[in-house]
């Protein structure tokens, strides 16, 4: 498949935004359970939500560049009963709303407990919004990944691993950003978020490795024989019906050389799984706020390469009809 930059930006940016919001809510839940000291509402939670919202908005903007008619985008909420794309387009603004409200509640300090559960857990508005937002964030990971995983004949994508990868990559980059944000704003949570970021990065490494291996060994169901319905082992295409290419040759082939593909592959393995972990590790000793920030930036660039590779990996069966021109 042809990797479109709008989609690469969309999926990676909202992944970070969702992950950061989940990190904030995790932090709040931990401090509620007295496992972490409580953080400043305005400086940490409100600013963190604003940052998460920025990523979500940037992702949404990127997605408009993918559309031929962005001015009609509102129509895309219509078929939520059948289309995962439609569902994603409904859940994304919903999550943005929760993130914004969560940030506002913290900003205006509306955190007086509304009620307590069994006299220990005091529930305030931010916690309710946080939990609702967290559910929306996970639902969004699911919807985004299902857009790809639900197409059964793009067999590289049609796997539960796609869902796991999208979620874990989003979580690792989001927690990475949370660590960077903590370091930058001088909050003592770099270790907490950093540890989770490393755990998620490691888990993502395992699941991505599994999917890379699966795709490497994949035997496609469709062949040129089933595509044109002629039972013969030797079939060679002589003409595609045109000389100058068509939508079919532009949209479904990546057009990159084998060397480029290998380069991007190596880069994403290094930049997603290795370098950020080393940089975070180094920040345990050198308490420099630049290290976690660099770790996040490097991993984000790596994730863009990973998403690019995700498209390049996918072999659409329609490509069988466009193998060669005499």
């Amino acid at each position: 498949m042809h990797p479109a930059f709008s989609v690469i930006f969309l999926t990676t940016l909202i992944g970070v935004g969702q992950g950061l919001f989940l990190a904030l809510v995790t932090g709040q839940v931990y401090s509620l359970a007295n496992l972490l000291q409580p953080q400043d509402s305005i400086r940490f939670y409100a600013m963190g939500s604003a940052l998460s919202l920025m990523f979500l908005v940037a992702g949404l903007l990127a997605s408009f560049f993918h559309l031929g008619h962005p001015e009609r985008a509102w129509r895309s909420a219509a078929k939520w009963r059948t289309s995962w794309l439609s569902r994603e387009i409904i859940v994304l603004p919903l999550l943005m709303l929760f993130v914004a409200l969560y940030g506002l509640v913290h900003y205006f300090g509306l955190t007086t407990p509304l009620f307590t559960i069994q006299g220990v857990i005091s529930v305030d508005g931010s916690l309710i919004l946080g939990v609702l937002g967290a559910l929306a964030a996970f639902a969004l990971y699911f919807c985004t990944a299902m857009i790809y995983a639900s197409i059964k004949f793009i067999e590289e994508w049609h796997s539960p691993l796609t869902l796991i990868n999208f979620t874990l990559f989003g979580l690792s980059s989001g927690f990475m950003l949370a660590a960077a944000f903590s370091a930058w704003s001088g909050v003592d949570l770099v270790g907490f978020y950093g540890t989770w970021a490393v755990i998620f990065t490691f888990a993502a490494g395992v699941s991505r490795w599994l999917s890379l291996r699966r795709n490497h060994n994949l035997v496609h169901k469709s062949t040129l024989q089933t595509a044109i319905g002629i039972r013969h082992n030797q079939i060679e295409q002589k003409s595609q019906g045109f000389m100058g290419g068509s939508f079919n040759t532009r949209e479904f082939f990546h057009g990159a050389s084998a060397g480029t593909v290998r380069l991007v592959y190596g880069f994403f393995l290094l930049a997603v799984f290795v370098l950020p972990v080393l940089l975070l590790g180094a920040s345990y000793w050198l308490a420099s706020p630049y290290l976690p920030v660099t770790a996040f930036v490097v991993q984000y660039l790596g994730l863009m390469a990973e998403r690019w590779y995700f498209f390049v990996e996918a072999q659409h069966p329609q490509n069988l009809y466009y193998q060669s021109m005499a």
Partner: protein
Amino acid sequence: MTQMALVIDLNVCVGCHACVTSCKEWNTSGWAGPLTDHRPYDKDPTGTFFNRVQTFEVGEFPRTETVHFPKSCLHCEEPPCVPVCPTGASYKREDNGVVLVDYDKCIGCKYCSWACPYGMRELDEYQKVMKKCTLCIDRIANDTLPEAERKPACVLACPTSARLFGDVHDPDSEVSMAIREQGGYQLMPEWGTKPANHYLPRRKTRIQIFEDELERADNPLKKEAPLPAAEGETLDDVSF
């Protein structure tokens, strides 16, 4: 229920592209148009088409066969391209089973094109909406046309009658009988899309001649003997 469809006879198609050009002509100027072109008279011309004819060579020289393969939307009975459309722009008509795109609703997200295993949908680079074969819905559902012309433009144009058109749900239609009697098949049956369009396979034409047909046992010329004397007039002698 009615399911209109094409049945394309690969045994007959000579790859002349008459269906391609007449499709383009009818549809670029009609309801489904325009089908825009880019650099039409330059190097690397490209553009939107509903129908293409590809060519494949089967076998190894000298035992090769050239197969011309017309390719357009198959109007699947379980079209995977329809449910994925977020706007409802892609739909399947209830009354005749034709799969269509509403250009006024389409946002050009291309998702449906990913969800067609056959690559039968093309995004129009100028109008930025998804386009595909309409089975000439503006002909086949147009009651003001004479009955004989209520057929897709490609079917009317085909000089060899390689393209049949009709209702594949009616067991007595020309297309159903052709599918049944001449081994009609579907493309990529493995995805359960149930394409309505069918293809008829290449068929070898062989004549079977038995020896006694070449050498008629009663052929009088075979006999090494003087020609039989006239035994009166035979029927051959009197009929003319």
